[in-house]
């Protein structure tokens, strides 16, 4: 039987990984967003950087009872620089990439393929086999957004098979109830989420990206242990530690301890932060359309997948969860009280 273009390239890339792993590899098994992940890493002399890259995942070690055979994803990850083993030469043109880096010619119902020209990161998945490949040119050359949200494409593809949608949103929680924070850059999502770190009642779940499952009741799943904040915002957040990167936008990447991040929780409210010229914060009811505009376009343009099915999933999410405007006043203590009271009342 003739192999499809997607399968042919996937097999060639898998052989390249096998070659890279001849010089040594390490394995880890952990859980992420309720899914088992077996990760095999061949990084050669970039092993330290690779492990630092992977530490941004909000994963926990897998227990014996976690996952069943056949349901886990096996991810083969390697560095071309670290191992000296490159990917096969691609036989596609730059114009074959979508704006999200996907390669439709090398993607079908079974295989998904993407290549990010900025970070020089290749990702592919065989959904049928539960096998994924990720090759970076060099871990040390990756831009800030990759360090903040590693393996994003593969996680997105793998979770989508179970109606779990990655979204461009921050998230916080209290009293076992989660709140999604949606809005454009500069609206206050990240700062609001970071204010909840190590708070007595509120908890941080995610900054920038998280997963939302819609199988039964909507739930939020943390994916990454990172927060990107502007310098001014960091001054009011104690215990953040030293930041690592600045990407030219003025935002610094902070690594968070997994213990500082809440586990997955029911999603009970969608909040749309907006900075206002007022002392106190307040939360006001908002229309579904406004929430959709704050969530859908930025998610659609940043994450891979079938845009149409993503739009339907996010529409379902917005119809099922109430939405509110979160007017952010200057008094940060008041903001935390407002958030706490809102979540308590839901």
């Amino acid at each position: 039987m003739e192999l499809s273009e997607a399968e042919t390239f996937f097999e060639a890339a898998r052989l390249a990984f096998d070659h890279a792993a001849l010089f040594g590899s390490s394995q880890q098994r952990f859980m992420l967003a309720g899914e088992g992940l077996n990760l095999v890493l061949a990084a050669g002399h970039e092993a330290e950087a690779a492990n630092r890259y992977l530490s941004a995942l909000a994963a926990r070690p897998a227990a014996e009872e976690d996952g069943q055979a056949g349901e886990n994803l096996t991810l083969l990850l390697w560095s071309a620089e670290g191992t000296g083993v490159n990917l096969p030469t691609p036989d596609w043109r730059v114009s074959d990439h979508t704006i999200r880096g996907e390669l439709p010619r090398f993607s079908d119902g079974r295989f998904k393929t993407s290549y990010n020209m900025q970070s020089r990161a290749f990702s592919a998945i065989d959904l049928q086999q539960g096998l994924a490949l990720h090759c970076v040119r060099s871990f040390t050359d990756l831009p800030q957004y990759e360090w903040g949200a590693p393996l994003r494409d593969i996680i997105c593809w793998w979770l989508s098979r179970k109606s779990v949608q990655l979204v461009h949103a921050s998230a916080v929680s209290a009293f076992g109830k989660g709140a999604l924070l949606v809005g454009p850059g500069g609206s206050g999502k990240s700062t609001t989420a970071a204010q909840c770190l190590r708070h007595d009642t509120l908890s941080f779940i995610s900054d920038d990206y998280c997963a939302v499952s819609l199988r039964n009741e909507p739930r939020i799943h943390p994916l990454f242990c990172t927060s990107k904040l502007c310098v001014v915002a960091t001054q009011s957040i104690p215990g953040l530690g030293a930041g690592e990167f600045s990407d030219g936008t003025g935002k610094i990447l902070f690594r968070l301890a997994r213990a500082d991040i809440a586990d997955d929780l029911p999603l009970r409210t969608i909040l749309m932060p907006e900075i206002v010229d007022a002392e106190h914060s307040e939360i006001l009811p908002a229309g579904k359309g406004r929430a959709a505009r704050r969530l859908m376009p930025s998610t659609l343009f940043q994450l891979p997948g079938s845009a149409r099915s993503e739009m339907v999933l996010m529409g379902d999410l917005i119809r099922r969860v109430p939405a509110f405007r979160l007017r952010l006043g200057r008094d940060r203590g008041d903001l935390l009280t407002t958030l706490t009271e809102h979540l308590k009342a839901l």
Partner: protein
Amino acid sequence: MTKVPSYVLHEAFDDETVVVNMNRGHYFAFSGQSADLWGEIVRGASTGDLSARLGIKPPDLDRFLSLLDQEGLVESSREATEQLSPEEWLADTVLAGSVERFTDIEGLLLIDPIHEFDQNGWPTA
């Protein structure tokens, strides 16, 4: 019949319909009669019927369709006209104020990335 291209995604809510042009990185909020009109177009209604069915004067409908055409939200054979904002297209019509356009994420698009190729044939931006 006016057709919606595959790169235009839309989702209707009680208060408004969100329409995204995935090619241009623009998105829109349609409310009131504009949302009703869009819903009819998506369902494949003939533009000839829309005016009478929704009680919208033909010149107002024509300006709405010209706006959709300009923004690439429908496939049409209309000749290109001047570039106007939604507010300008719909000024002095019953649809005034019912369409908002947002362009804040168009910077995420790599419409024509500058690229080179590494020694292994992989493009780099």
